[in-house]
């Protein structure tokens, strides 16, 4: 049996041929059953060796749950012209079989960066959906390049915790509105447990009618440096609640109705995460959501009297691979994020 996980340097023009040879060689060893699997083409775009390594490791871990052809691209427009590639396989054991997904790595610098979009396009498995993961901040200054790479993509994945301005959110919104590429944000997935916790407060039928009685929502965000991306979870939470409650949000981020949204800065904890939510009703009663530090789970408290620690007992995995798995595990594009993004862009003005 050959070692499929070993990186094999290959000529850029012969990547597919080299992959075929790799599998042909493996098939000569029928005693070691290897199954090749793919449900997605996942292209990770990076701009440094460190992020390239991070993307490769993350997608390798994710491939055991979401088999995929992984293409990790490192583009550094400023360097000497270079275009090189290597291939390997990410394998895991499933039952008696070893299941492997292919990984292609491409490094381009200088003028060779322009060759990446058509090269990536040619390496995609036909009839399989394409996800384009933009690792790091979006290059707003080179929108044409982003559009070219996104052209074949069904899903765009960003992580808005890296965003340095509201224009990045706006670029994601525009992609969602103007193209067939559906936006996905790891940061949006990351705080899903907070949305679940908030939803659970209103699951009991007698609480459902109190949605209309909300008067103030106070969201505390952990922001160590005050960096824009560290506010986005909290901004998303406020925007999501506004959208689901059918509230109108003004261009300057204020809410016209009788509801006040307050975003507060908190230190201590994971930067960029929500630290707590307090919802105040018309009669002065409150519902709070906080994290039980000891058990690592979210708890909800309604009216300050009835504590419902069993409202949320699960903590979602929040490693990048967990988020990628959850995002790609949803066959349909997120229909809520495109509704929330325009509101989030307005609300972000409060913290920008």
């Amino acid at each position: 049996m050959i070692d499929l996980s070993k990186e094999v340097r290959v000529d850029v023009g012969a990547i597919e041929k080299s992959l075929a040879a790799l599998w042909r060689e493996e098939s000569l060893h029928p005693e070691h059953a290897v199954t090749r699997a793919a449900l997605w083409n996942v292209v990770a775009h990076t701009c440094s060796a460190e992020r390239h390594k991070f993307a490769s490791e993350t997608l390798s871990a994710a491939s055991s749950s979401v088999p995929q052809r992984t293409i990790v691209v490192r583009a550094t427009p400023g360097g000497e012209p270079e275009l090189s590639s290597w291939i390997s396989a990410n394998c895991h054991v499933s039952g008696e079989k070893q299941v492997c997904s292919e990984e292609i790595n491409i490094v381009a610098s200088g003028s060779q960066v322009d060759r990446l979009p058509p090269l990536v396009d040619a390496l995609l498995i036909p009839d399989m959906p394409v996800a384009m993961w933009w690792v790091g901040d979006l290059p707003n200054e080179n929108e044409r390049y982003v559009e070219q790479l996104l052209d074949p993509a069904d899903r765009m994945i960003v992580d808005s915790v890296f965003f340095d301005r509201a224009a990045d959110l706006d670029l994601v919104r525009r992609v969602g509105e103007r193209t067939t590429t559906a936006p996905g944000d790891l940061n949006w997935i990351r705080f899903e447990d907070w949305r679940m916790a908030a939803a659970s407060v209103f699951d009991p039928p007698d609480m459902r009618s109190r949605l209309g009685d909300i008067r103030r929502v106070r969201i505390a965000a952990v922001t160590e440096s005050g960096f824009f991306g560290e506010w986005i979870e909290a901004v998303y939470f406020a925007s999501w609640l506004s959208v689901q409650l059918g509230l109108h949000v003004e261009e300057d981020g204020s809410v016209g109705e009788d509801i006040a949204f307050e975003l507060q800065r908190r230190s201590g904890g994971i930067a960029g995460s929500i630290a707590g939510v307090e919802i105040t009703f018309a009669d002065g009663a409150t519902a709070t959501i906080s994290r039980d530090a000891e058990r690592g789970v979210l708890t909800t408290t309604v009216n300050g009297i009835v504590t419902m620690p069993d409202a949320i007992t699960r903590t979602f995995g929040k490693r990048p691979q967990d988020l990628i798995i959850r995002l790609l595990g949803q066959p349909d594009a997120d229909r809520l994020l495109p509704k929330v993004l325009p509101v989030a862009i307005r609300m972000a003005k409060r913290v920008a």
Partner: protein
Amino acid sequence: MTTTAPDVEPNPLREGLEQERVPDASCLVIFGASGDLTQRKLIPGLYSLAHDGLLPAGQTIVGFSRSDYTDDEFRKLMREACDKHARTRPVDDAIWENFAKGLFYVRGNFDEHQAYVELKKRLGEFDKTRGTGGRRIYYLAVPPDYFPLICELLGKEQMVNDPEKDGPYTRAIIEKPFGHDLESARELNRVAVSTFRERQLFRIDHYLGKETVQNLLVLRFANGIFEPFWNRQYIDHVQLTVAESIGVEKRGAYFESAGITRDIIQNHMLQLVSLVAMEPPVAFEADAVRDEKVKVLRALREFPKGKEAELAVRGQYTDGSVLGEEAIAYRREENVDPKSNVETFAAMKVFIDNWRWADVPFYLRAGKRLPKRVTDISIHFRPAPYPLFNKMSNVKMQSNILSIRIQPDEGISLKFDSKIPGPTVRTAPVTMEFRYATSFGAEPPEAYERLLLETMLGDSTLFARRDEVETAWDWLDPLLVAWAKDARGPELYPAGNWGPPSADALIERDGRSWRRP
């Protein structure tokens, strides 16, 4: 699927979340809580739902049985059960702690009126302390003999709300067997509907909770490629196999009164047949799906009186070996009559007399102590009309086979011919395979988890309706009567074989053979 009869407007904050449908908290009362089913399937299944965040806050589970436990003793016992049987193991202490807060126990005999009074009182307390709002689900994990008694006392204590009137829901889950024959099934249904309305009843056939069984509908009706070929024009025959490698284990007494036909064919296999053969439903909703399934059952051709043996064979295992282990004969099993004539294997050729399936045989076989545990459906397509290739060889033209593996190693494969590389045109069969584990990685939820959740949500699509159960018995009863009268009894087969020789003869006289699943 749609949830029937929602109590209040959906929660808008649930939109887009992984679990868009979270049921309202209810009291789930398990009658027979000290039994095997509760410990192996129900509580571990409920725990796994809690683990996956699918149970609502305040969901309350109340065990009811004769054994003398306190709440804490019951919790301890159930924790041990989850440690052994939960899908999501090891059990997470934090999640268990929360889950266990909703676990309670009420001791009582099923015929003890006072026990129901006590049960009602405690359920009322939970409504106040846990927000269960009067919603009730009664899980009757008890032998059918107790159904009338439990139904009567629940009714007498006014513990069942009429869905025709305003108020919280009451639902009842009934475990198979749904009767022993048509008459007893009708009686059981009559008793059940004297207390509950049909739409409050959830008859569990756990096969319907399996992902691969549900995928049958997706395969057929979500893919444009298959349905045009899914008829007598293109399909030669269909085979269904439900094989178990184990014997009757500790269920000897039950099996003596049932046999494999009642235990497997009347319910699980006929459910599979109806899903394979049904017409597209007008919607993926409970009654629309079940209407189409029952039409298939109504179209099953009757066994010709006096000639049943031409279409059905029965067998019983003798000493042998399975998977390298010695296996004793059925008649030597615990609680089994040494002269028993109960069948542990049955095979039959079945026809569905309707426009789509006229004269297409469905070959069914089910048995215990067969070489391996496997449930498999294979659709055998008609061969190409003319042998263009392999003319010079004696190779018989192969059928294309679409195989749907229900368990284990769930998946779908398609067999077709391909050219063998080389200068001459020679063909060989190859398979194209899809495996759940390979493609989706994640472990599918246990059937009971899905079915418990569907009950809480009030969706009965995956449950058997009264007319399905009675129509299945109506078709099968004459065969069972004929077998009961036939003194020859079942044909013997050594444990570890695919049934008796007459099972092979049943299909071979049609020029076909059983597929090795």
